[in-house]
């Protein structure tokens, strides 16, 4: 068994604990006297230390240990929380994050921590008190020895070997329990021969134990030696070693006076007793995302073949087959629903790093900014969650840098000196909406127009909303100066590209002097979608129903021209027409009767002109190879019931 299999777990849990640290320190800054906060930071640091120690990442363990020492002073009221201390703690968290990232990238955890450790040591001028904790629990583990085991014990006795029973108790908050247990029995195995373990070695490996386990060992070594060996492993709360004189005694509970328990010298173990009933409340398991992806792909394939079967069934016209297929259809639908839900995560995962970002930004920019988060329990597909953080981060940086005015300016304009950035998530139909608002100065239309003119875009005749949306174009930064925070002119188009790659849209709404809002709309689920199949000339394409407002049948002569652009008038609305045949270089059918698929992308509406409709179908989006990935006209391809590959149009690219 090697440690690498624990690495993923370690990384994931480290990320969680780093988040706890960040959150904790943030709230500590606001309420310096909150004991519970200090405790939670302490716990996170402690857990990290333990995990890092067990994985052999000594630098992380050392830094967190030093953090613990400082935090311990807070708990004992020997130190008070100042903004300096908070900054240093933040620096520690950043350093830890760097180290963990470095591990994730396959490097070691070496990182220049000397400076930070010195800072920590300065805070904590006196040596940390050593807190000896006398544990009061005794383990009453019963061994169930069979005749064979007894025989071994007897033989060992005859050969003058000693038989020990080693009872080990791990820390209450030990995270990698099985790794710990592994280290313990590995160490014992090197010292002698293991006869029995309670719970069994298998259960220990699978973490099927609380935090105590007992191992029976035949060895030549002394009690003290064995105990010291085990105490050398970190996160061990207590080890008891008893000598067993005869096989009858082996089965009984050990005599109490055997060895006084040795408590570890780790300080700060006086965490509250965890509520035992709590244990069952989290009925969840961690699953490797790859397995979920595989699961998802398999369900996708099932859906594909079901569609195929349905096609065959229609051709065969057998009622029995049809009925069975309907059942299969229902089950696949449920299965699909389930796998989607399994992959969904609350957006909290993304949002919870932003309070820290905003705090740092307000320090850096010398502005007073408050971040309000709402709807963080809105759920999105894991893929979206993984990707959406970066664009939101860009938008927040922009809002803080360009949106929110400096304090003096805000006061002059009669606004509250404190700027507000509001980050909201909510569900709207089959879309998830993320809305980021600031109460800053809003977009300057004139500035955008000037910039547009400079890079050769004609803005005459464009609506104000369209002009504002120009900021998503490449190389479009209206900021006069480039700052560290934003304004390099790469941000906004990156934001848009990223969001469209997730099948979403982004729009900007802004009112001068009042603020700016960015509205991101994302599909709730990816991979399996309802689509309309259309024909343009000889080619078939799929269009996601998520974008389709309406489909209308019309005569080609109804298309009118305004300002050299094709439009139709539908229910008193003027809708621009996009001739897909032109856009895709496909020869269209030479008929007068056409269909217009009216699509809505964000705030924009357009009509896609197609030759005919082939009906609605559930399709599985499959990515196209790397060679075709930069074609922006398609979001991917799918395999239809007849086995043919069909392209899925990226509606946003045409509107």
């Amino acid at each position, binding site marked *: 068994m090697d440690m690498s299999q624990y690495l993923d777990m370690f990384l994931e849990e480290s990320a969680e604990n780093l988040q706890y640290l960040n959150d904790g320190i943030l709230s500590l800054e606001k309420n310096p006297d909150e004991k519970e906060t200090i405790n939670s930071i302490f716990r996170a640091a402690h857990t990290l230390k333990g995990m890092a120690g067990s994985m052999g990442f000594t630098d992380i363990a050392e830094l967190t240990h030093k953090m613990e020492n400082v935090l311990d002073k807070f708990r004992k009221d020997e130190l008070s929380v100042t903004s300096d201390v908070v900054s240093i703690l933040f620096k520690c968290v950043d350093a830890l994050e760097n180290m963990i990232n470095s591990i994730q990238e396959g490097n070691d955890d070496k990182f220049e921590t000397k400076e930070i450790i010195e800072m920590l040591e300065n805070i904590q001028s006196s040596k940390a008190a050593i807190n000896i904790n006398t544990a009061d629990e005794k383990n009453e583990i019963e061994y169930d020895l069979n005749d064979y085991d007894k025989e071994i014990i007897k033989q060992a006795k005859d050969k003058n070997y000693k038989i020990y029973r080693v009872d080990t108790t791990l820390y209450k908050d030990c995270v990698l329990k099985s790794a710990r247990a592994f280290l313990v029995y590995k160490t014992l195995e090197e010292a002698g021969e293991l006869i029995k373990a309670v719970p069994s070695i298998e259960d220990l490996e699978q973490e099927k134990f609380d935090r105590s386990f007992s191992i029976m060992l035949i060895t030549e070594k002394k009690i003290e030696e064995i105990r010291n060996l085990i105490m050398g492993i970190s996160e061990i709360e207590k080890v008891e070693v008893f000598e067993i004189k005869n096989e009858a005694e082996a089965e009984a509970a050990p005599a109490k006076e055997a060895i006084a328990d040795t408590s570890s010298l780790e300080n700060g173990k006086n965490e509250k007793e965890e509520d035992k009933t709590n244990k069952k409340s989290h009925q969840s398991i961690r699953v490797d995302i790859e397995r979920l992806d595989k699961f998802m792909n398999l369900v996708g394939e099932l859906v594909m073949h079901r569609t195929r079967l349905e096609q065959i069934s229609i051709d065969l016209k057998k009622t029995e087959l049809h009925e069975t297929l309907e059942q299969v259809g229902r089950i696949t639908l449920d299965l699909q629903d389930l796998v989607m839900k399994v992959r969904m995560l609350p957006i909290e995962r993304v949002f919870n790093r932003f309070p820290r970002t905003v705090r740092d930004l307000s320090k850096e920019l010398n502005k007073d900014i408050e971040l309000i988060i709402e709807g963080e329990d809105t759920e999105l597909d894991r893929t979206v969650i993984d990707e959406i953080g970066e664009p939101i981060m860009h938008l927040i940086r922009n809002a803080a840098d360009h949106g929110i005015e400096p304090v003096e300016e805000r006061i002059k304009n009669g606004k509250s000196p404190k700027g507000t950035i509001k980050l909201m998530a909510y569900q709207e139909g089959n879309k998830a909406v993320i809305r980021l608002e600031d109460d800053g100065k809003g977009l300057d239309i004139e500035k955008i127009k000037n910039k547009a003119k400079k890079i050769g875009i004609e803005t005459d005749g464009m609506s104000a909303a369209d002009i504002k949306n120009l900021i998503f174009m490449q190389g479009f930064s209206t900021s006069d100066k480039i700052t560290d925070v934003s304004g390099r002119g790469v941000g906004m188009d990156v934001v848009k590209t990223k969001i469209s790659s997730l099948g979403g849209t982004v729009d900007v709404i802004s009112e001068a002097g009042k603020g700016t809002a960015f509205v991101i709309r994302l599909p709730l689920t990816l991979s399996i979608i309802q689509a309309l199949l259309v024909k343009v000339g000889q*080619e078939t394409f799929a269009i996601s129903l998520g974008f389709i407002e309406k489909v209308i049948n019309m005569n080609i002569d109804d298309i009118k021209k305004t300002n050299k652009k094709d439009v139709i008038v539908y229910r008193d609305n003027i809708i621009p027409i996009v001739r897909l045949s032109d856009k895709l270089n496909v020869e269209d059918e030479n008929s007068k009767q056409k269909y217009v698929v009216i699509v809505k992308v964000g705030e924009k509406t357009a009509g896609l002109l197609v030759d005919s409709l082939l009906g609605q179908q559930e399709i599985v989006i499959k990515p196209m190879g790397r*060679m075709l990935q930069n074609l922006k006209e398609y979001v991917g391809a799918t395999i239809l019931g007849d086995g*043919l590959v069909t392209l899925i149009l990226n509606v946003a690219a045409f509107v």
Partner: protein
Amino acid sequence: MQIVIFNLGSEKYALTTDIVHGIEKMMSITKVPTAPYYVKGLSNLRGSIITIIDLKTFLNIENNGQEQNIIVVEINDERAGFIVDGVEEVVEISDDMIEKVDDNTGFVKGAVNFDKYIVTLLEGEALINR
């Protein structure tokens, strides 16, 4: 190493077998409008979608309508199919049989001289990563 020899127009070409995933008959190909000129389209290879490249177009060889096979290659988890006129055979060669040739395209690994004919050994990875 093993190479698979195939025809493109009047010449013989080859790919090393370590990147060859399989050899298929011609299959139906869905055109991808707006794709690069040498991409013939997409095909369904037993449930997964692969990009099909017209190797003759790619290498500037005149099209003769003799396409018979698709050689499916897999490089860095990316699968693609090359349309060829017909696969001849798989032969074992040694490294020293590969002669360097003047090539500024980067698609050619070298030439192998088999007395009766000469085979141009192509660099599969370069073809896919273009």
